[in-house]
């Protein structure tokens, strides 16, 4: 750690991991409700568990991005953060807002929560991933703007690099597209159309800029490869991302009432979206192969390589699987979608945040890398979580293929609930894979406390 103020990111990383645990616990509750339908009913209905699961995911990823920003920007800019105090203050605002929101989801009926929090003034709630009360949404905007102000000022006053420029563009894009969550037209087709400007233009647009820049930063550090080469790669990757991903939004405009020409635009452009993910994998391996030093933090290198591979599999391969309109006609809104959503979110965004944590945390704790023992434990956690996620994805894919067949392709189609009954076995196997995932996560957390004697000191 070169600058004192980078240490604020520690708070963000710790809270992110805490929310990650909450996310997985609620995932397991839902996974059980899939097979034991009345489990915890009516105390925690499925929709409530799902909100906690997905919103905790989004919030902890945002915390991770912010932590990454607070760590990376001072180092790239070669100066202290504009205001460490503001960063700490916003952290507590964000954490308290997130906690209150979750408590609200769990304790108050959603309709009451909506009435209590001003949804009548500006109805924005009740849409997938954007379930947060108006107050929380406003809170997110305030925290994001404060954060952006803080890091933008730092960059403006310091050294400007491609990495910090790309990160800033990604983060500003994140905040700007989130503003569409306040737009909720009465017309459900237009509502859905602009809803994707948040969701798709996030994960297949601006977030990929964040992903690329964090990965580039860590790769420079652990491989010692010339910045010039890494930054050129970074620009090539994000160029491919946006020229495919923006029009690629069309893969969500096949069946929601939008004109049919989107089937062509959406299929063609989104079919190219795997290319930047593939480039990212090649990039990560290439840089590690050309490394100029043996960085003592092998765990961080493993996470960086893992991000490349798993993002390509989850987003690239599993995305391509159902992105062509004639295929999507059958798979739209099935377990195939859930399979892809899980591996893509894990492989790209969960893993890149952990890559950053894995690289930065030891430095913030005064060592160049963790002890060999702690790293071995962390690598076990890597494999357990990653392999569990592969299995979750495979089981959901199997369930999805059967669902599509029984409910949509067969000449005597089964009703939804009857088709679900036929695939229970796969839901059970998903649930057990989820338990293994949780074990992996607990081992990961344990690795922070497993201090061997041989930790190399930070220079």
């Amino acid at each position, binding site marked *: 750690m070169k600058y004192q103020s980078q240490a604020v990111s520690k708070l963000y990383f710790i809270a992110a991991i805490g929310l990650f645990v909450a996310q997985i616990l609620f995932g397991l509750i839902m996974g059980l409700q899939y097979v034991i339908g009345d489990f915890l009913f009516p105390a925690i209905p499925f929709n409530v568990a*799902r909100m906690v699961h997905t919103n905790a995911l989004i919030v902890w990823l945002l915390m991770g991005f912010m932590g990454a920003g607070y760590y990376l920007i001072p180092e790239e800019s070669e100066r202290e953060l504009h205001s460490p105090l503001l960063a700490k203050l916003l952290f507590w605002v964000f954490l308290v807002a997130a906690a209150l929101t979750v408590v609200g989801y769990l304790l108050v009926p959603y309709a009451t929560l909506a009435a209590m929090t001003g949804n009548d003034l500006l109805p924005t709630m*009740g849409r997938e991933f954007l379930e947060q009360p108006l107050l929380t949404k406003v809170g997110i905007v305030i925290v994001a703007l404060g954060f952006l102000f803080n890091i933008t000022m730092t960059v403006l006053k310091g050294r400007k690099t491609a990495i910090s420029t790309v990160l800033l563009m990604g983060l500003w894009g994140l905040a700007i597209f989130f503003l569409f969550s306040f737009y909720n037209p009465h017309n459900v087709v237009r509502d859905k159309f602009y809803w994707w400007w948040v969701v798709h233009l996030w994960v297949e647009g601006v977030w990929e800029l964040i992903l690329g820049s964090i990965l580039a930063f860590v790769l420079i550090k652990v491989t010692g490869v010339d910045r010039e080469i890494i930054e050129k790669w970074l620009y090539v990757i994000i160029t491919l991302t946006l020229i495919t991903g923006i029009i690629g939004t069309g893969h969500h405009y096949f*069946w929601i009432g939008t004109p049919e020409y989107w089937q062509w635009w959406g299929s063609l452009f989104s079919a190219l979206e795997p290319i930047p993910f593939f480039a990212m994998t090649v990039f990560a391996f290439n840089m590690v192969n050309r490394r100029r030093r043996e960085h003592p933090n092998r765990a961080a290198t493993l996470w960086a390589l893992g991000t490349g591979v798993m993002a390509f599999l989850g987003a690239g391969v599993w995305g391509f699987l159902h992105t062509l309109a004639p295929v999507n006609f059958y798979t739209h*809104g099935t377990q195939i979608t859930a399979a892809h959503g899980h591996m893509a979110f894990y492989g790209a965004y969960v893993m890149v945040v952990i890559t950053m944590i894995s690289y930065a945390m030891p430095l913030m704790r005064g060592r160049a890398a963790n002890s060999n023992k702690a790293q071995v434990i962390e690598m076990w956690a890597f494999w357990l979580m990653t392999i569990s996620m592969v299995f979750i994805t495979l089981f959901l894919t199997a369930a999805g293929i059967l669902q599509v067949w029984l409910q949509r392709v067969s000449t005597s189609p089964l009703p939804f609930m009857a088709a679900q009954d036929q695939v229970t076995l796969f839901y059970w196997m998903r649930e057990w894979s989820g338990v293994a995932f949780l074990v992996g996560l607990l081992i990961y957390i344990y690795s922070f406390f497993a201090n061997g004697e041989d930790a190399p000191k930070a220079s």
Partner: protein
Amino acid sequence: MSGSFTTSAARNIFFGGTVFFFLLFLALTYQTEQALPARDNRQNLTPQVVAGKKVWETNQCIGCHTLLGEGAYFAPELGNVYVRRGGAAGGKEFIKAWIKAQPTGVPGRRQMPNFHLTDQQLDDVAEFLKYVSEINTAKWPPNIEG
């Protein structure tokens, strides 16, 4: 990736490409807005449908169901439930009676809560689902089961 291809060339291609494709996206969006009135059933977008959409949202139906294939995958697609359950010959009545009768309490079966909706709200949300079923969705879903 070396030689004459410099970082600043890469950066310029990035900005040029992004701006170009974003403008193209805006143009397609404009064209879509022009085409929507013929497809999105807006002639039937009555105040009651608007009220029904709000009932739909404030009870978070999307947290279990899909609507036109988007949402959660725990419970049946509702974009076409009006048609599936009888259309003009009783679709709305079915939806209202169904919502009122929840939860089923069948042991081990997936449960839908009771939302304690008023008769007015029930009618609104049923009218909303009828409205959605009349949107032109390019023949999706493949069959009546959704």
